[in-house]
Structure formats: C-alpha cells, structure tokens
C-alpha cells in the first residue's frame, strides 16, 4: 500500500497496515533501534534533562515575542541581500516558490529534506509548472522514485526493503545492482551528484532560523543540505514561522538535544548555517536567497489549544515510542505528518474535522510526551481535540448519545446499580466457563480477539454490607 487513501476509513487503513508483514517487521526493528539509540544518547548525557527544560522554555519564550523575533530575522535576512516572502496558505507558498522559479528561469530543482515542502505539496506544483524537483535525501529520493509519500519523519523509506530499492533503481534509473545498501547508496550518490551540479534551484526547509543574525540552519547527515545551498544559483528555504530562535546561544541548546532525540547521535553529520547569498569572495553559494515564511494554520494556534505543538522540532522521537505508530506505520495516518505529533499538526493544518478519527488513534499512554525533547504534552492536546470533535458535533450523534447517557447514569447511583443485575441477566447466554467469548454488535469488537469477564455475581457494593458486618 503506497499512499494513505483518505477515502478509506482510518480503521481500515490501520487494519491493512497490521496485515503487512514486512511493514510490521520493519517498524519493529527501526523504532526499537531508534528508541535504544535515543536512550543511550541521553543516558550518557546528564545535562540532557536540564537542556530539555531549557529548550522548552526557549520555544515558549519565542512564541511570547514571536513578532519581534520574526522582525529581526526578516531585517537581518534582507540586510544580507536575501528576500523574505509571506505565505499564509499552502497555496500562497506554492505560488511564491513557482514565481521564484519562473523569474530565475529554473528548470531543475534539487530539494533537501523538508517536511514543510511536503506539507504544502510543492513537488506536484513544481512538476506541473515545468520545473523538475529532485529529492536528494536518500530516503526521500527512493520514495519519490516510487511515487509514494514518506512514512516516517526521519526515515521516510523505512517501509522499503533493499530488494525493493534495488528493483526501483533498476526500473527508474536503469541502474542494475545487487540489493546491497552500499551499492545502492553509491548509485544514488552518482545520480544525485549530477543533479546537484546541474540544478538551477535549491529548495530546503529550515530546522531553525536565528533571528539575531538572519541565519537559516539545516541539519542533515548526508550533505544534501550543503549541496542544495551551495551549488545552485538560487536558494529557497521554506520555513514554518515557529522555527525562529532568538540567538546563537539558543541554537546551541537545540543542537545539543535534536540529533540525540532523533537518531541518538550527539550531532548530525552536517549542521549548516547559511545567512544569505554568496559573498566575501566565495566560489560557491547562491546568487539569490529567498526565505518563505509559512503560516498554513500555525499562527491561529498561537492562542489556540495546539500552541504547545508549535514547539515541535520534527525529531520523530514520539513516532518511535508510540504503540499505535509502531503497529501501523506512517502511511495509515493518511496525512503528511504521522504519529502522535502528526495528529496535532494535521489538526493545525487541516482543521479539527480532519482528525475526528485520528484523535482517537491513541491509547493515551503518554510515551510520546516522555520522549519529546521539548516535553510537548501530546496526550493533553489529543484529549482537547477529542473534546473539540465532541463539542462541535463532528463526532457521530450515536457516540454523543452513549457518552451523554453514561455521564448521566454515573450521577444517579441507584439507577447505575441496576446496571449490574441487568448485565448479569443479559450476559447469561454468552457466559461459558466463567468468561464471555462472543458478544453481538458493537461489543463484538472486544470479543473478536479477547475474552471478557462476566459482571460479577455480586459486585463489590453488593458485598459491602457483609464486609462491614464481618469486621
């Protein structure tokens, strides 16, 4: 299954993913590995906990003066000869990038990994406008060739076997090789080196942007961020407004915890700080630098229930520990951002109705909040989204009826207590050997795979009188 098909109900997409044996194995191996690496990295790093608190505080403090920090960022970028653009919607952002491409006569664009550009569906728009976008992050390159969307924020091709990649390269690139990651990487290096050298336009995201200096920061392991910002003559960075950080001192705090959270590395191989077009006698570097500031639902959350989700560093740690993500993978979620934070981001970008099912794709276990480097309380916001869905009557009326009735019953103890004898009556035909193995209708969702205990012959409340007397 390649794309999350939104016409199919989420429950079906999830069940389909559960049946995909290779996906299940890949998810278990990959997420377990990432979890172990992250735990080892932080285990070795006593300052880590305090830095996480610091990082969270910096994110909150930045939001409290977001306008000032963005103003400073904009002024600094422009002072260095860069151009800043303002995209309220995904449509705006696409139009801005297309305009830049058109004005610079670009035909070929190389892209460094950017969830923001995924979010706005930039590639399709570029293609339609006659600009060929080439993903250069190996995982993104693979899924681009396969016409798929990424299934994990950090490891987009986690769901593909090396055999599948080898077949893909043979089919799409006409390059045959053994299904060996070393060989496959070499092919990708050669193919993409050509593209980097030929490209007119480099498109990236921004992990951070330092307001004090007008610097865009790109974190990669492969070097494609450096390539895309050095070789083509135009560089465009698309960045969510929440990515701004006040100073270089703040940046150092985030760098200390980002890679550790994502992959367990102390630092990613490349952290590139770029502040505008080529200067100072440089041989490389773009002639033009454009920063596209992206809203797309973020600004509304400054005072919204999802404000905390704006702290997100896009590290993927929450995906790796989520019991639901670990079972169904990224595609089943159906939107750009999967996993726990993905549900919140989807609500942010697409509105609460889009997550009427996804908000319930969680057992509220809290592992995500534990793993999050900036301690985002994801479960709290999932419950808020559920509340939103209930309040706005987006949830089905049958559900609201059931919960409303349940709530009423809980405040009427005498009627509530009638529930026990009633249940005992109703369950009789279904109880065998002290357990219930099959129930009709809705209750069958439990009994299809699990036994259910019968309601006790005497509830605790019914026994209490005796317990009182016996003391």
């Amino acid at each position, binding site marked *: 299954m390649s794309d999350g098909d939104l016409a199919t109900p989420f429950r079906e997409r999830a069940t389909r993913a559960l049946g995909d044996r290779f996906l299940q194995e890949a998810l278990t191996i990959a997420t377990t590995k990432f979890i172990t690496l992250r735990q080892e990295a932080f285990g070795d790093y006593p300052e880590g906990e305090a830095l996480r608190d610091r990082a969270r505080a910096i994110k909150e403090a930045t939001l409290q003066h977001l306008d000032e920090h963005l103003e400073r960022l904009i002024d600094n970028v422009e002072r260095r000869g860069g151009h800043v653009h303002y995209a309220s919607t995904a449509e705006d952002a696409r139009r801005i990038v297309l305009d830049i491409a058109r004005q610079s006569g670009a035909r070929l664009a190389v892209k460094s990994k950017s969830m923001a550009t995924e979010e706005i569906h930039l590639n399709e728009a570029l293609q339609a406008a006659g600009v060929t976008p080439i993903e*250069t992050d190996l995982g993104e390159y693979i899924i681009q060739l396969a016409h798929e969307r990424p299934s994990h924020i950090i490891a987009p091709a986690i769901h593909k076997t090396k055999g599948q990649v080898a077949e893909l390269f043979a089919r799409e690139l006409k390059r045959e090789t053994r299904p060996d990651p070393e060989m496959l990487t070499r092919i990708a*290096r050669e193919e993409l080196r050509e593209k980097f050298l030929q490209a007119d336009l480099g498109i990236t995201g921004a992990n951070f942007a330092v307001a004090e200096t007008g610097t865009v920061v790109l974190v990669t392991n492969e070097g494609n961020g450096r390539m895309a910002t050095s070789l083509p003559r135009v560089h465009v960075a698309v960045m969510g407004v929440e990515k701004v950080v006040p100073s270089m001192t703040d940046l150092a705090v985030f760098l200390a915890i980002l890679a550790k959270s994502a992959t367990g590395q102390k630092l990613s191989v490349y*952290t*590139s700080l770029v502040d505008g077009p080529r200067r100072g006698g*440089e041989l490389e570097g773009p002639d033009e630098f454009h920063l596209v500031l992206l809203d797309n639902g973020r600004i509304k959350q400054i005072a919204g229930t999802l404000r905390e989700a704006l702290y997100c560093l896009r590290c993927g740690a929450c995906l790796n520990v989520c019991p639901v993500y670990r079972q169904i993978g990224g595609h089943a979620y159906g939107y750009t951002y999967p996993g726990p934070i993905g549900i919140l981001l989807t609500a942010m970008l697409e509105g609460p109705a889009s997550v009427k099912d996804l908000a319930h794709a969680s057992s509220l276990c809290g592992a995500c909040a534990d793993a999050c480097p900036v301690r985002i309380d994801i479960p709290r916001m999932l419950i808020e989204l559920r509340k939103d869905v209930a309040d706005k009557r987006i949830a089905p009326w049958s559900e609201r009826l059931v919960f409303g009735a349940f709530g009423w019953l809980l405040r009427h103890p005498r009627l509530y207590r009638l529930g026990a004898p009633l249940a005992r009556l109703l369950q009789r035909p279904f109880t065998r050997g002290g357990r219930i193995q099959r129930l009709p209708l809705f209750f069958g969702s439990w009994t299809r795979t699990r036994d259910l205990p019968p309601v006790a012959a005497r509830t605790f409340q019914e026994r209490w009188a005796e317990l009182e007397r016996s003391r």
Partner: protein
Amino acid sequence: MSTRAEFLGRIRAEMAKTPGLFAATPSARPDRPRERLDVLRRELSERWAESLARFVREFERVGGVFHRVAEVAQVPDVIASIAAERQMRKVVSWHPAALRLDLAGPLSGRGLQVSAMPGAEVTAAERERLRAVVAAAELGVTGADLAIAETGTLVVVSGGGRPRSTSLLPACHAAVFDRDVLVESLAQSGLVLEAWHDGPESDARGAAINFITGPSRTADIELTLTRGVHGPKEVHAVFVENGLAGGSRG
C-alpha cells in the same frame, strides 16, 4: 500572498489573545561576546591536551581518522600518505593563507596534482572551471575554524580562499588545525558563534558556516549504515602540535 505588515499583524493579533503557557525567557546572551571568547580561549589553552584527547575519542567514534604531527612542515607528508594509500592523485586545498601552510610547493613532484583555491574574487567563468576541478578532485584539504571536543566536530567558515566545496565534493576531506581552535562543548561553540557574528568583520566572511561531525552517512535503506552519500566518505583531522603559521605559537 501577504505583505510583511499583514502577516506580522496577524501574528500580533493572535499573540494579544494570550499571555502564553508559562513564564519563560530565552537564553541569557553574553554581553561582550568577543571579549568573553578571548577569556575562554585563554582558559582553554591551559587544558588543551584534555580537550584534544576528548576530541580524538569523539572524532574516531563518528568514523574520523586522526593524525598528529609536531611541526607544520610535516603536514604535507601526512596528506601525501593519505592520498597514496587510497591511490588518489587529485588534491584541492584552501588558499595557503587560509590554510596557514603551503601544500602545493612541498607536494609538487610527488605524483600529486594539487590545486589551491584562489584567495580573491574571480570571474564567473573561472568559478565554473574551478567547480569542475573540485568535483573531479579526490581529496580536499581545509583548515578548521573550530574543533569541538564534546562531539568530535570540525567547523569550517566559508569565504575567499576557503570555499565550501573543498570539504564537500571530494570523496576524502582532511582538515588541518592546531590547539587554538579547540573548544570543549557545544555550549562554548554557541559563544563562538555569538562572537563571530558580533561586529562588522562578519560581513567579510562567506555566507556559510559548516559543522562537520564525521563522514557523510545515511541509514535510510533498512537502517544499514553507509558512508559517503553526498559529502565525503572519509574525514581526516590533522593536528599540528606546535601550531600553524600565524597562530599563537607560529
């Protein structure tokens, strides 16, 4: 599309609706970063050997190859042996003033083709030509503006005579440095970044600062680690004990 005023206006409108989630401040920034950095450097120079030991540990842990020589005059030999071991012939390097050592001279006549990058601004045509030279090169030699012990990271600042491509395009990268650029931690590197951006000199340097922590890598295919995806497959650090030219000891 919005204008700057519209966009920021909307942000301000939303901000006005809420005091935020909790009281918070960004990091305290150093008052006079360049002075603070001078003080830090003096302190670090007392314990450079520890910093170096830690750097070596972390650098090797991320797959770097470490070399140590006593005198700068011995550096060309190290470069020559790296190249010879890998049957590499084409070498590119920073301009000697940026590198703080002369490579082309000592390496000429040893079967190596060494191209030093120009120090001053060149024509667009020359830039094209040089790009092809660097892309064809097998080994790129640069200096290092910072060496972070905590993470085994080399930091290179771009500019005239010190292009980005030297440490990026060739399959092998070697960085030559001495004790003056050692810092202990990421936090200290934050201070360095503050200092580097403080004052008008920051306009004279290039537009890219790169932190390099080991060779280019990916684990995108079945989580199997491979090196040399887009950047170099190997990174070498050459430490000159008695300092490079023009430094605190040179």
